[in-house]
């Protein structure tokens, strides 16, 4: 009996000590992490966001150049800029580019640069579909989805001081590392919740621009019908929720908006004239 109570006492003491000690360590560590991330978030102002974006855009263009079709490039810029004007960040230096790759994908870079691949553009049927996809990418920029992921990642990829230096100085090895890390993020993707948010808000932005709101669901349906084993889809499917899940979520959350703006123009003829010649 004595031994039992002694044991119980020991266990209690150990537990009490553990309860006392562990939370302190964790909380301190947590406070530090939050402070660092919070500081980095504050450190990146809009000019810096744009500067990082240009460096990342240059690297993505190193992976695939622009399609050599100025008319097509200007057309996509007009559609994209018109949509961006309808948002809370209308005056970023928005620029849109069609990358010469048969892969099916699109990318949003902090500061207002958006890429879409030739492979995705060729599978679309109308300007409303293009607007749906550009709307989705514009949301990533508006909500700083990639920038936040870069900030989080920079904290762990680079030591605290190096991260600060990489953000402060626009040249040097720390900066190169930050940009390389930021570019690599496009091969890993964002959180699923960011992608689903970009779908919901992207539909709204296309509708604000005066387009048939069903453009994005229509593209998702096209992707769903493609052979999932097609290597042109590999990266997009790896970095995004499955089209079926994205369509279900839109149908569940956005049906009223979709239906309210479903009779706006699709502009299929203008799209085909500019893209399919």
């Amino acid at each position, binding site marked *: 009996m004595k031994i039992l109570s002694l044991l119980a006492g020991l266990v209690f003491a150990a537990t009490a000590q553990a309860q006392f000690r562990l939370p302190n360590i964790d909380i301190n560590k947590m406070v530090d992490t939050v402070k660092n991330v919070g500081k980095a978030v504050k450190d990146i102002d809009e000019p810096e966001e744009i500067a990082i974006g240009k*460096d990342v855009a*240059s*690297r*993505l*263009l*190193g*992976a*695939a*150049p*622009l399609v*050599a079709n100025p008319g097509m490039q200007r057309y996509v*810029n*007009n559609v994209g*800029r*018109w949509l*961006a004007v309808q948002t809370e960040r209308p*005056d970023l230096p*928005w*620029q*849109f*580019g069609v*990358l*010469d*790759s048969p*892969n099916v994908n699109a990318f949003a870079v902090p500061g207002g640069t958006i890429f879409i*691949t030739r492979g995705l553009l*060729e599978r679309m049927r109308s300007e409303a579909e293009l607007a749906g996809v550009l709307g989705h990418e514009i949301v990533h920029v508006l909500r700083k989805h990639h920038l936040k992921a870069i900030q989080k990642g920079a904290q762990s990829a680079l030591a605290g001081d190096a991260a600060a230096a990489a953000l402060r100085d626009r040249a040097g090895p720390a900066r190169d590392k930050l940009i390389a890390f930021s*570019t*690599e993020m*496009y*091969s*890993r993707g964002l959180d699923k919740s960011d992608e689903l948010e970009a779908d*919901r*808000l992207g539909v*709204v932005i296309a*509708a*604000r*621009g*005066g*387009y048939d709101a*069903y453009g994005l*669901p229509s593209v998702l*349906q096209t992707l*769903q019908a*493609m*052979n999932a084993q*097609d*290597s*042109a889809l*590999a*990266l997009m499917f790896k970095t995004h929720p499955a089209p079926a899940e994205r369509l279900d979520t*839109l149908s569940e*959350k956005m049906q009223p*908006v979709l*239906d309210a703006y*479903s009779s*706006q*123009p699709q*502009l299929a003829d*203008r799209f085909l004239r500019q893209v399919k010649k």
Partner: protein
Amino acid sequence: MRILALLLLLPLLAAAEPATVIKPAELKQEPASDAATLATLPENTAVDALERKGGWTRVKTSAGEGWVRMLSLRLGGATTPKPGASGLTQAFNVARSGTSGTQTTTGVRGLDAEQIANAQPNPAELAKLEKFAADRDAATSFASQGKLSPTSVAYPK
């Protein structure tokens, strides 16, 4: 002569896509929920999708032609999509990248995970990208040419 006939058929074939009903759907006479219902299509009905109008897709079924809600369909047939459909697209893409002149290396896709991770800066292409940007005024007149009217739509909560 045979080839000519085949070519003439192509646009028709491209317009009809096999699709499957993924949840029970009313077949409507017009693309509207208050239009007359012609039939109710059960799950897994195979149809041919002909065109889309807003949230509605015109389909051909054994019960006749009509409109169903676009989101009650999955394009691409009853099981997995036919390999032939994307095979054709792939052949088309190979042909296209062969003549584009910018990507001459065979087998280079350019935007696989590994190629993105190892990409080096391309300032010349970045300069081109900036040159193609549209300003607000240009985009606004482009929109009015297309008869697009800006609409006020709130973000969902």
